[in-house]
C-alpha cells in the first residue's frame, strides 16, 4: 500500500515530457543544469572550431594545396577537412539540443503537458527497463539514453578524426611484445580495429537507445540495479571491449587464426605468453565486476529522510547550498572529467604496457583530484533521493520569480542559473585575460615573430575578433543572469 502511494506521488511530481520521456522534478533539474552548461560551453567550443580549424582550412590549407596540388596525397583535403567539419557538426547538434531542452524546460506549462499527454505516447516513470539483463529504473534508463546519444556522436567523430589520442591507444593495444624492446603487429589489424570498434560502439549505443525506451510496468517485487552497480557495469564493459582488441590481436598474430587474415603466424615466446596471461586476467576481472553488478540491487522505493546534518567538507548543506554545489560539481565533472579520463586512459595503458611505476600512479591521480571532488559532491547531493527533498524544500519555502530574457524563472532555476553564471563569468574573464596575454606576447615578440605575410596577420586578427566577440557576448549574458538572479540567494 505504501509503495502504491509512493508511485502515485511520483507520477504527480512529473512535470515535463522530453523526447518522449516523462521527467520528475529531480530529473528536470539535472537536465536543466546540463543544458545551461552546454549552452555556454558548446557555443565557445563552436567558436573555436570555426575561427581556428575551419578558417585554417579555408584560408591556409586550401591555398597551399592549390599552389602545388601534385605534391599532396589525393585525399589530403578530405583528411584535413573531415575531422574539422565533423567537430563543428557535433558541436552544432549539442548546441541545438541544449537550446531546445532549455527552452522546453523554461517554457514548460503543466496544463499544456496534460493536453499533450493524451495525444502522444509517453514513456511513463513507473517502469523497469531491461538492459543487458540489468533491471533499470526510469531515471537510470534516461541516463543510458543520454549516454548513448553522446556515444554515437563521439564514435563517429572518433572514426573520422582518426588522429586522436584514442587511435594511439588502439594502436598500442594491437602491438604485442616479443622482447624487452620489441613488439609486433600487422597492418591489417591497425587498419581495421578502429572501424570495428566504432561499429561495435555505434551498435551498442543504438541498442541502448531502443532498449531504454522500452520497459515493463514496475512492481514492488522487482528490484533495480544500484547506481554505482550500473557505473561499474559500464566501466567494466568498456574496458572489456578495449582489452578484447589485445586478446584477438594475440590470437590473430600467434595462433592458426592468422591464416584467416592471410598473414604469417608469429612464434610465441615468454614475453608474448606473459602478456597474454595478463590480458586473460584483466578479462576475468572485468567479467567478475560485470557479474557483480547484477547482484547490486535495491528496491526502487528505498527512501531516506532528509538529514539536517548533511555536510560536504564540513560545510552544512542547506537546500540552496546543495543545489549550488550540485550545479558547480556537474560543471566541474564536465570541465575536469574529460582531461582526467584522457590522462587516466593514456597513463593506464602506458603503465600496463611499459611496467608499473609509482610516479606514474601519482601523475594519474593528481589530475583526477578535481574530478574526484566533483563526483563526491554529486553523490553527496543526489544519493538516496536527497535531491528531491532539497528541491521540495526550496520550492515549498517561498515563491520568488524573476524574468530572464523572455522566460520566468522560479526560485530553484534562479539558484541554478546564479551559481553557474558565477562560475562561467570567472571562466570568461580568465579567457579574456588569456587573450590579452597572447596578444601582448605577440606584440612584444616573445611568441611567434611577425609573419612576413600580411594575410597571416589578417587571419590572426579575424580569429581574435571572433573569439573576443563571442567571449564578451557570453560574459555579458552571464553578468546579466547574475544581476537578474542574485535575489534568489539573498532570500531566506
Amino acid at each position: 500500500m505504501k509503495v502504491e502511494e509512493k508511485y502515485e506521488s511520483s507520477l504527480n511530481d512529473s512535470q515535463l515530457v522530453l523526447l518522449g520521456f516523462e521527467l520528475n522534478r529531480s530529473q528536470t533539474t539535472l537536465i536543466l543544469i546540463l543544458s545551461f552548461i552546454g549552452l555556454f560551453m558548446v557555443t565557445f567550443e563552436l567558436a573555436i572550431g570555426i575561427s581556428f580549424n575551419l578558417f585554417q582550412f579555408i584560408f591556409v590549407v586550401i591555398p597551399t594545396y592549390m599552389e602545388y596540388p601534385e605534391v599532396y596525397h589525393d585525399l589530403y583535403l578530405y583528411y584535413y577537412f573531415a575531422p574539422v567539419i565533423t567537430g563543428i557538426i557535433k558541436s552544432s547538434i549539442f548546441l541545438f539540443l541544449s537550446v531546445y531542452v532549455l527552452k522546453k524546460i523554461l517554457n514548460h506549462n503543466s496544463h499544456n503537458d496534460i493536453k499533450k499527454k493524451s495525444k502522444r505516447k509517453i514513456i511513463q516513470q513507473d517502469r523497469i527497463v531491461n538492459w543487458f539483463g540489468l533491471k533499470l529504473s526510469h531515471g537510470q534508463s534516461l541516463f543510458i539514453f543520454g549516454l548513448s546519444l553522446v556515444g554515437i556522436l563521439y564514435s563517429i567523430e572518433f572514426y573520422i578524426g582518426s588522429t586522436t589520442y584514442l587511435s594511439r591507444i588502439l594502436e598500442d593495444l594491437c602491438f604485442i611484445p616479443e622482447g624487452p624492446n620489441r613488439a609486433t603487429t600487422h597492418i591489417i589489424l591497425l587498419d581495421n580495429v578502429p572501424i570495428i570498434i566504432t561499429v561495435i560502439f555505434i551498435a551498442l549505443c543504438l541498442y541502448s537507445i531502443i532498449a531504454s525506451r522500452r520497459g515493463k510496468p514496475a512492481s514492488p517485487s522487482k528490484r533495480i540495479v544500484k547506481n554505482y552497480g550500473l557505473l561499474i557495469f559500464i566501466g567494466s564493459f568498456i574496458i572489456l571491449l578495449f582489452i578484447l582488441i589485445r586478446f584477438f590481436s594475440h590470437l590473430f598474430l600467434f595462433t592458426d587464426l592468422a591464416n584467416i587474415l592471410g598473414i604469417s603466424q608469429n612464434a610465441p615466446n615468454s614475453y608474448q605468453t606473459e602478456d597474454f596471461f595478463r590480458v586473460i586476467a584483466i578479462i576475468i576481472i572485468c567479467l567478475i565486476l560485470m557479474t557483480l553488478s547484477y547482484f547490486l540491487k535495491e528496491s526502487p522505493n528505498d527512501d531516506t529522510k532528509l538529514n539536517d546534518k548533511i555536510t560536504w567538507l564540513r560545510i552544512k548543506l542547506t537546500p540552496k547550498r546543495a543545489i549550488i554545489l550540485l550545479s558547480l560539481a556537474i560543471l566541474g565533472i564536465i570541465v575536469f572529467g574529460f582531461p582526467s579520463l584522457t590522462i587516466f586512459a593514456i597513463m593506464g595503458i602506458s603503465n600496463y604496457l611499459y611496467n608499473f611505476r609509482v610516479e606514474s600512479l601519482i601523475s594519474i591521480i593528481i589530475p583526477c583530484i578535481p574530478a574526484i571532488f566533483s563526483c563526491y559532491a554529486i553523490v553527496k547531493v543526489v544519493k538516496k533521493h536527497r535531491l528531491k527533498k532539497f528541491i521540495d524544500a526550496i520550492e515549498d519555502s517561498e515563491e520568488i520569480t524573476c524574468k530572464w530574457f523572455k522566460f520566468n524563472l522560479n526560485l530553484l532555476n534562479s539558484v541554478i542559473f546564479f551559481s553557474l553564471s558565477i562560475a562561467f563569468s570567472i571562466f570568461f574573464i580568465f579567457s579574456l585575460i588569456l587573450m590579452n596575454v597572447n596578444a601582448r606576447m605577440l606584440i612584444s615578440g616573445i611568441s611567434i615573430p611577425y609573419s612576413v605575410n600580411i594575410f597571416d596577420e589578417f587571419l590572426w586578427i579575424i580569429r581574435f575578433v571572433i573569439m573576443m566577440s563571442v567571449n564578451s557576448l557570453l560574459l555579458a549574458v552571464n553578468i546579466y543572469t547574475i544581476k537578474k538572479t542574485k535575489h534568489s540567494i539573498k532570500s531566506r
Partner: protein
Amino acid sequence: MMNIIFEISRYIIFIIIGIILIIWYWKKKGWDVSFKVSLIFIFIWKTIIFFIFLGIDLLIEEYWIISYYYFYDEIIYLLIMIFRFFINIFLGITFLKIIYKQKMQESIVIILMIVIIEIILENIILLVYPFLYFLT
C-alpha cells in the same frame, strides 16, 4: 615588453571610459555625485595603477629571461596579468569605499564592470597594433 606609447594611450583612454561609466552608474542608481569627485576617484585610481603596472613592466624588462619553452613564458605572463587584474580590483574597491563611502557590494559591481570593459578595450587596442605595424 613595455611599450610606453601604448601604456600612456591606454591610461588616457581608461580615464575617459572610467569617468563615463561611473557617472552612468551613479545616475542609474539615482545618486547625486558630482563630476569632480568622479574625476578625482578615477584619476587617483588609474594613476596609481599606471605607475604600479609601469613598475611591473620595467621589472620584467630588466629581469626577464626568455626561457627555452614558450609555454613557461606564457604561464609566467598569465600569472602577472592575473595579479594585475586583482590588484586593479582591490585598489578600485578601496578608493571607492574611501571616496564615496559605498557598501562593498556596490563597489565590487561597478569596479568589476570597469575592469572587464578595460580588458575588452585593451584587447581591441592590442588587436589594432599589429595591423598598424604593417601599415607603417
